[in-house]
């Protein structure tokens, strides 16, 4: 069986779902229950969350043939731009994933990315040879301190692997970062700068408390905190700013380090506040309850949404006369 996100199942026409935003990437999951024990994850070893959850999204199971053929069809009809495998850390899941990727490769030319606990450069090479166009090595934590608390394991090893992989396979390595695990904006942005300097693609997520996980009672990040990281990461990606020119107070970003007109022009249309990561990835409602705070917008922002996001940034404007 293969798990696919509820939104993906809707796109494939195998599940009824009411939604105002469909995924443009097929999100597929291999395995169940991870050998890692990340405190935020429903798949963690000690999590008592429902086993069909990843983040707040449900992942119903289907026959692989149905799903993979559906993905191939949806790519042909341009409903999907990419397929993304999320793999829990277990040897069964890795075997399953390799088989799924092979099967999909036979059926379709759809770009494929794989997010898994690959431990070596050889592992990354194997996935790329198999036909993945991106491999994501999830850092998740915004800094070493948070990594030690919420993921365990050795931060330095992950960084070294990311660096080596990005050097060996330029443009093909991505990472995931979860905002709101207790890191400061300065810590998160320093890490993002390091990733961008290595040539690693950065996908930002907002911490989402899930019942049954260790962090079920923790709050998601304040929207201002998230928006500032999104905005700064976007400006860094465009090469308009670097970590070194930004100013922080008590860990909070207070100045981008370039004239306000410049960053305002780059941010005003709202592109910075959309889902980030591999091309074609939009992950609708992965961190968001429909109708709730929109951390990552899955589609281009309306003028009103963009204005709201700019206000949420908390980078205060100079009032007009007569205000």
């Amino acid at each position, binding site marked *: 069986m293969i798990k696919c996100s509820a939104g993906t199942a809707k796109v494939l026409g195998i599940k009824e779902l009411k939604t105002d935003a469909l995924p443009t990437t097929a999100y597929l999951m291999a395995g169940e229950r991870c050998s890692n024990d990340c405190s935020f994850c429903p798949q963690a070893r000690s999590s008592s969350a429902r086993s069909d959850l990843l983040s707040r999204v449900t992942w119903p199971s289907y026959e692989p043939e149905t799903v993979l053929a559906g993905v191939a069809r949806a790519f042909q009809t341009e409903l999907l731009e990419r397929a993304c495998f999320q793999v829990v850390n277990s040897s069964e899941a890795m075997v399953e994933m390799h088989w799924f990727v092979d099967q999909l490769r036979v059926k379709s030319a759809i770009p494929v990315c794989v997010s898994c606990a690959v431990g070596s450069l050889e592992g990354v090479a194997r996935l790329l040879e198999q036909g993945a166009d991106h491999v994501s090595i999830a850092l998740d934590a915004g800094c070493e301190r948070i990594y030690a608390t919420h993921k365990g394991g050795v931060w330095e090893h992950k960084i070294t692997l990311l660096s080596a992989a990005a050097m060996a396979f330029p443009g093909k390595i991505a990472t995931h970062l979860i905002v709101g695990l207790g890191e400061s904006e300065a810590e998160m942005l320093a890490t993002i700068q390091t990733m961008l300097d290595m040539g690693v693609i950065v996908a930002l997520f907002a911490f989402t408390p899930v019942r049954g996980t260790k962090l079920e009672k923790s709050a998601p990040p*304040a*929207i*201002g905190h998230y928006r500032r990281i999104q905005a700064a990461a976007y400006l860094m990606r465009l090469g308009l700013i670097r970590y070194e*020119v930004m*100013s*922080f*107070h*008590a*860990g*909070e*970003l*207070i*100045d981008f*380090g*370039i*004239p*306000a007109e410049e960053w*305002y022009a780059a941010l005003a249309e709202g592109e910075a506040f959309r889902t980030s990561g591999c091309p074609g990835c939009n992950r609708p409602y992965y961190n968001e309850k429909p109708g709730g705070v929109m951390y990552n917008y899955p589609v281009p922002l309306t003028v009103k949404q963009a204005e709201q996001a700019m206000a949420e*940034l*908390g*980078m*205060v*404007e*100079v*009032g007009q006369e007569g*205000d």
Partner: protein
Amino acid sequence: MENFSGETKQLMHRAWEARCANFPLQIEFDYPKATEVITLTGTTCALDCAHCGGHYLAGMKTVTESNSLAGLVRQRGQAGFTSCLISGGCDRAGKVPFLPQLPLLKRLKQHKRLNFHVGLIEPSEIAKLQDVADVVSFDFVVDDATIQEVYGLGRTGEAYIQTYRALRKSVKVLPHICIGLKGGNLAGERKALEVLQTEGVDGLVFIVFIPTPGTRYADRQPPDLEAVVQLLAEARLLFPAQPIFLGCMRPKGRYRQALDLAAIHCGVNKIVVPTRAAVSLATELGLKIKTGEECCVL
């Protein structure tokens, strides 16, 4: 420069001249990473002030007897710190209850310099404060309506004046004036400056109201920038030889960029976490830059 009126620009020019007449061409920029900010009450505060609502306590380290100095040093790791801002929520009377933590504070004092937020402290407590405080950062508010609206305290400006006077006899005190505290409107700021002229100051710290999400003033605007700049210039002229600092609490973004630039033209002596443009301006104006790593009053 912003589109300030000719009058404001003239005022700023006079302020700049006053600064140059009384101080060397030097400005200090502080990046207070060597000052650990501590709350003695965790995230608890008996008041629910309109501008804070307890929000700023969440960003501080909680230190109590059971979570001691050793714990703090452990948390802080190798980075080290040389001083602490001792803060916390207030009790119903509007003071930070530091007395129950006195033994801890005495131990801290042996190793670190301490800056205190005390609020409307009792005279009997001031004697004890003397032993542990290097300096007190005292929010100085004299407008009764502001005190009522923001803090919901049944106290008057006179209580703030009396407390300031009493504190000043025992310990170094730097009054803090939050410009636009009354929901972004200027209310008693000028009167506060007048009173301080009579009372005397060792220096002045200006901070600027920040509309903070989740507080009663979340939807307000920061005070009109030109009005803030005028006040800074007037303060420079009223206190030509006393150090004037632009403190850490002020809005982010474009507002902060514009404020920092104008504050330099108004002749402030210190800016905490300046924007990058302000650092460039200081250099252009020929100001020698000194940098600090602690709270601006330390």
